């Protein structure tokens, strides 16, 4: 029964696709509609461009650390001479349950950003930027997909500016000045302490940037003690070496922060390296 419901849910978007006209400057491929968006340049020499994924219901794409399964999108830019695109910047992802595994990614919509450097005195009438994207889109099953999108920077939609601003606001930030994070490594878990936290709001999650360090399916245990917040993170079963720092995103209700947290080993966590077998 459940299987039938799923099939129907998958058919519905396909039917819609049959009657919807194709949008210009972008393309619809397997379960994701991808488009490039740009806002008018402020003539500072750089401008943000966005790669917008609109996903069919139930389908998702992945963050840079996909978690237990999956693969992040990869982009190859095709730019006019002198233009340069910065690294793709990803908003904070969500946890996505997948047959008992936990992945990190995006459902319904995600805008990935890149900072475009425009050469001084750029005068071309048709500065066209284009990108080839390879990505994995998954629901019950995963489908590798490719897409090519392009955009003429002269033909910009004014509505894009607000979309790009919203996307920038969703990028992880640095911790505010005066807020510090450190961690100690136990045998089973890392204990991350952040403080003072009142100016951060409620910490709700920690998402690791590195695979193979934290057990993705063990939800962090978060406790407040005074002005600090402690986050207990279960170690990954695959972690077989000491960790000097924890990299990841600290998620609060409303914001996300990039953190690089120095890790101190407790005596008990410094167990001898695992025995070797042959």
């Amino acid at each position, binding site marked *: 029964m459940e*299987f039938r419901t799923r099939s129907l849910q998958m058919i519905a978007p396909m039917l819609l696709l049959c009657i919807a006209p194709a949008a210009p400057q972008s393309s619809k491929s397997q379960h994701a509609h991808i488009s490039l968006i740009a806002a008018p340049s402020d003539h500072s020499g750089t401008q943000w461009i966005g790669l917008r994924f609109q996903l069919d219901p139930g389908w998702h794409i992945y963050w840079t650390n*996909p978690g*237990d*399964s999956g*693969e992040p999108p990869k982009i190859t830019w095709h730019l006019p001479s002198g233009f340069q695109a910065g690294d793709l910047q990803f908003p904070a992802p969500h946890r996505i349950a*997948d*047959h*008992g*595994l936990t992945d990190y990614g995006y459902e319904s919509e995600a805008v990935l950003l890149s900072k475009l450097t425009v050469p001084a005195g750029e005068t071309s009438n048709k500065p066209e930027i284009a990108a080839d994207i*390879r990505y*994995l889109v*998954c629901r*019950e*099953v*995963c*489908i*590798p997909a490719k897409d090519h999108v392009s955009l003429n920077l002269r033909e910009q939609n004014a509505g894009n500016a607000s979309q790009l601003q919203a996307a920038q606001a969703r990028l992880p930030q640095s911790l505010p000045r005066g807020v510090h994070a450190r961690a100690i490594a136990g045998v089973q878990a890392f204990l991350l302490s952040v403080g003072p936290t009142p100016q951060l709001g409620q910490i709700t999650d920690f998402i690791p940037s590195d*695979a*193979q360090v934290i057990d993705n*399916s063990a939800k962090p245990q978060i406790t407040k003690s005074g002005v600090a917040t402690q986050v207990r993170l279960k170690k*990954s*079963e*695959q972690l*077989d070496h000491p960790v000097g720092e924890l990299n990841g995103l600290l998620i609060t209700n409303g914001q996300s922060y990039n953190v690089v947290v120095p890790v101190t080993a407790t005596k008990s966590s410094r167990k001898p390296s*695992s*025995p*070797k*077998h*042959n």
Partner: protein
Amino acid sequence: MKTIRSFLPVLALFALSAFAVKVGDQAPDFTGTDSHGQMHKLSDYRGKFVVLEWHNNGCPFTKKHYESGNMQKLQQEWTGKGVIWLTVISSSPGSQGYVTADQENEYLQKMHAVPTAALLDPKGDIGHLYGAKTTPHMFVLNPQGQIIYNGAIDDKATTDPSDVNGANNYVSKALQEAMSGRAVAVATTRPYGCSVKYAD
């Protein structure tokens, strides 16, 4: 009813963590039926190296290694050196990768795949016993029946077949090192691939 409801999450927890095996552990024994109807008891292969390969023919990560011929090449090379290679299919009926014995035999023939055997595990018993997470997920066992490698097939966690060349194949490395009497340098890695499509 209430008992069943509270019991189910506990079972799910066991399936994923408690039974997961670690490098250095004695590999849990099992008996599985292959696509020709033959039974294979793991402990009967004591004295030989054994590779366990979790498989789903529709998963793009699995396809990367079969459509590029990489998996078949590994199967050929290592079974040629006396290794027992067991492909295990733990997809539940109705889910991606589930195959009947006939379908699997057709697939093996079409892909020129040469594992020692392809075990059909539609209930996920063997998968849960080993805590197999993804397809592919690879285990290597030494002749004493201990797990000497648990993790990814290689260090390129992508679906792109062109990444097979130049990848560091952890399974081959583990077998080479163990066969020459050395310790396995990289014994545990994060397996990459699609989730194993166990019965819910």
